[in-house]
């Protein structure tokens, strides 16, 4: 009994993402050891090595697989924060985040281009514009879901379908580039700081949401609505408002992710920016141990979920798996994670452990007598 408690109750909801990270680390450690000590591969670089190198503008920056993982997962992590809220409140997911991010990115570039020179002021202005536009689109999705009670996946299918067309119109079909030290500072490194800026942005977003949850009752109300809407309403909570709010907050996350994506490349490509990211974002929420049916949630779980997905991808790449094959391998691992996280498996596993414990006790009893 105690053992079961330790396993399933110790980390609570974070058990699955934690176990997933551990498994991936263990796998890479074993591979490192085999490569170095058994096969004695020359010039082999450990998966975990982190180096300080000079980048093209002469900055000292960190590089290595681990850095690529947390850096590359930034957009996904930011989206996963918002997706967690929507999932918790509505029991459904927004599949338009990739398209909406393309819109936000296009608005960002458009405003920068229109204002001529790129300086701190115009970047902030452009960010605010992108943020507001993304929140308006979020409100659109939210209205369909909360007021018209359309299933989230169907409601957001509309923006999923037309979002990239809207992004195309914003810049008249062009894929303009934005070149400036400030944009590079957002997408890559700020001079003097060796950590990639997107990683810092994720940290800031996490803090912003933690503060939001600390100074409002949003977390409690969202969970209440997600678990039992009828009871929440009878306790004076307005479920429509809470759901709408979750979509608007996701909109804010979408704009941040879009701007990271644009800044990384220094251009907006409405066709490819954050393409297919929505499914990974939903997956991150699921791996984070959050129920896709709504209710209890942990945004930290979803962020770890995003890192799990990216770590898996980088691990596969470092094993020289071709990019066409990566998706298939990813699918295998994800099936395992999702099955392990399912209630049926948990119950069966719990029963198995209990039975083992019982038989041990019995064996002990037999020995004693």
């Amino acid at each position, binding site marked *: 009994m105690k053992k079961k408690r330790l396993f399933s109750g110790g980390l609570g909801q974070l058990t699955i993402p934690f176990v997933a990270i551990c498994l991936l680390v263990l796998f890479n450690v074993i591979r490192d050891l085999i490569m170095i000590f058994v096969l004695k591969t020359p010039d082999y670089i450990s998966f975990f090595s982190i180096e300080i190198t000079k980048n093209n503008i002469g900055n000292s920056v960190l590089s290595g697989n681990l850095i690529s993982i947390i850096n590359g997962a930034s957009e996904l992590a930011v989206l996963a924060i918002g997706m967690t809220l929507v999932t918790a409140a509505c029991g459904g997911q927004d599949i338009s985040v990739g398209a909406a991010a393309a819109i936000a990115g296009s608005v960002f570039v458009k405003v920068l281009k229109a204002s001529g020179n790129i300086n701190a002021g115009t970047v902030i202005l452009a960010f605010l514009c992108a943020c507001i536009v993304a929140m308006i689109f979020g409100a659109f999705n939210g209205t369909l879901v909360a007021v018209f009670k359309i299933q989230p996946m169907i409601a957001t299918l509309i923006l999923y379908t037309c979002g990239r067309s809207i992004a195309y119109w914003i810049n008249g079909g062009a894929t303009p580039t934005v070149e400036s030290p400030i944009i590079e500072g957002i997408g890559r490194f700020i001079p003097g700081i060796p950590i990639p800026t997107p990683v810092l942005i994720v940290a800031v977003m996490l803090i912003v949401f933690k503060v939001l949850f600390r100074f409002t009752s949003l977390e409690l109300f969202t969970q209440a609505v997600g678990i039992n809407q*009828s009871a*929440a309403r*009878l306790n004076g909570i307005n479920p429509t408002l809470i759901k709408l709010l979750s979509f608007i907050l996701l909109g804010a996350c979408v704009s941040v992710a879009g701007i990271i994506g644009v800044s990384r490349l220094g251009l907006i490509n409405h066709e490819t920016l954050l393409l297919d990211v929505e499914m990974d974002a939903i997956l991150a929420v699921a791996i984070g141990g959050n129920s896709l049916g709504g209710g209890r949630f942990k945004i930290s779980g979803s962020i770890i979920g995003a890192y799990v997905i990216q770590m898996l991808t980088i691990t596969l790449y470092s094993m020289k798996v071709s990019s066409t094959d990566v998706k298939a391998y990813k699918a295998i691992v994800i099936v395992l994670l999702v099955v392990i996280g399912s209630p049926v498996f948990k119950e069966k596993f719990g029963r198995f452990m209990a039975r083992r414990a019982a038989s041990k006790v019995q064996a002990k009893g037999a020995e004693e007598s």
Partner: protein
Amino acid sequence: MQEAVLLQMRHIDKQFPGVKALSNVDFTLRKGEIHALMGENGAGKSTLIKILTGVYQLDGGEITVDGENVIIRSPQDAQNHGISTVYQEITLCPNLTVAENMFIGREGGAWVRHKAFEKRADEILTKLGIPARSTQQLGDCSLAVQQMVAIARAVDMKCKVLILDEPTSSLDDKEVKMLFDLMKDLKSQGVGIIFVTHFLEQVYEVSDRITVLRNGELVGEYPVQDLPQVQLVSKMIGKDLDELNALGESGEKKNENTEVLYEAEGLSSNEAKPFDFSIRKGEVNGFTGLLGSGRSECVRAIFGADKVNGGTVKIKGRQVRITRPIHAIKNGIGYLAEDRKRDGIIAELSVRENIILAMQVMNGIFKPISRSETEAFADEYIKVLNIKTASRETPVGSLSGGNQQKVILARWLLTHPDYLILDEPTRGIDVGTKLEIQKLVLKLAEEGVSVTFISSEIEEMLRTCSRLIVMRDRHIVGELKGDDLNQTQVMKTIAGGEA
């Protein structure tokens, strides 16, 4: 009337975690008989039916069909033994045709033989006199016809025992008559029908026999002509357990002269017809009437739980507008809903979060109660109400029914309401907790809180309330206080006084 026994259930026992749902219940159904199964909520009617249909497994006792011992493990087993059920909510598919609905799931092969099915369906519909065509979409038919199609489906499956669970609750008078004609027709064909309903008049219209259950026990089986309506009501509601009786004396019922706290005139909602109502400070009153009489709908209108359509409401003499629960909460009204699972607990949230929820809503989203404060509140009420929970962080869904109810009580007590509405707070919980809740109601009244207390058990209400509002068929039909406040008078008023 034939006396051949069709179905016999003997010494049926059923235990749920913490509750004995049925104990030693007998039930006999004869061939060609309409047998009403009566009892208030929690009496064990639906448990008995679910055992018969294979949804639940019995813990003790035996069932015989046509004199043969049978074991029913699944709904499929039940069907194979000729036992069919038509539920309160129609479980057919509204977007399929009538014929498809009648044959769905029992085609016997991969090929759906539409033409043959339609011909067969039309034959049955004509034979039973059901006004529907086989090619019609089921969703286009009236609810009564949909119900009849469900019955036709059962009849075609060679059912010997037909269970109708609240078949008339959403039908109008004409449709009810249609359904009753069908039932009588089936009866003459030798089908045994178990009829579950809350409508007393309907029982007397079609039934041959009545079996009454109360608190999971058999009260008795009576031929319908031997059991007048008032006696039926008294058997359903019953005498209470002796240990509860002591409570009556402790409650002083004096509040004739206090100020009026809440006053509604012509209040109506989507569910409740216009009614007048008022309550004094520190008064305990009750709405009584059988289930479906509209008592819950009235209190829901007071709280703004359903869409309020009209009426004026005054609190402490000042006119207020209460159209949503939040308005009611801010005006000092608390409401413990009838359906604890659906409208009360937030199962996956902890005891602590459930307790502070209403208070947090009252404070507003921008003024969260600090973690340490919520812990203190939770600990306080866990102690005061003697809530049995592993810890304050335990999900409330894992608590027993009585303790869940206490958590919701704690939630409202924490908001320090002037007026507390308790709709069936004692339903489905153990006797000890029932007693505690009644004591609490009287204590609150002494402290000046007005309470509306609704219970299916009239004795509970007689013990706690100083005034009873009696409802029948969604109308207030009487108000009892003082010397009129006794069981006979209440039952007479509920049953319509014609006894």
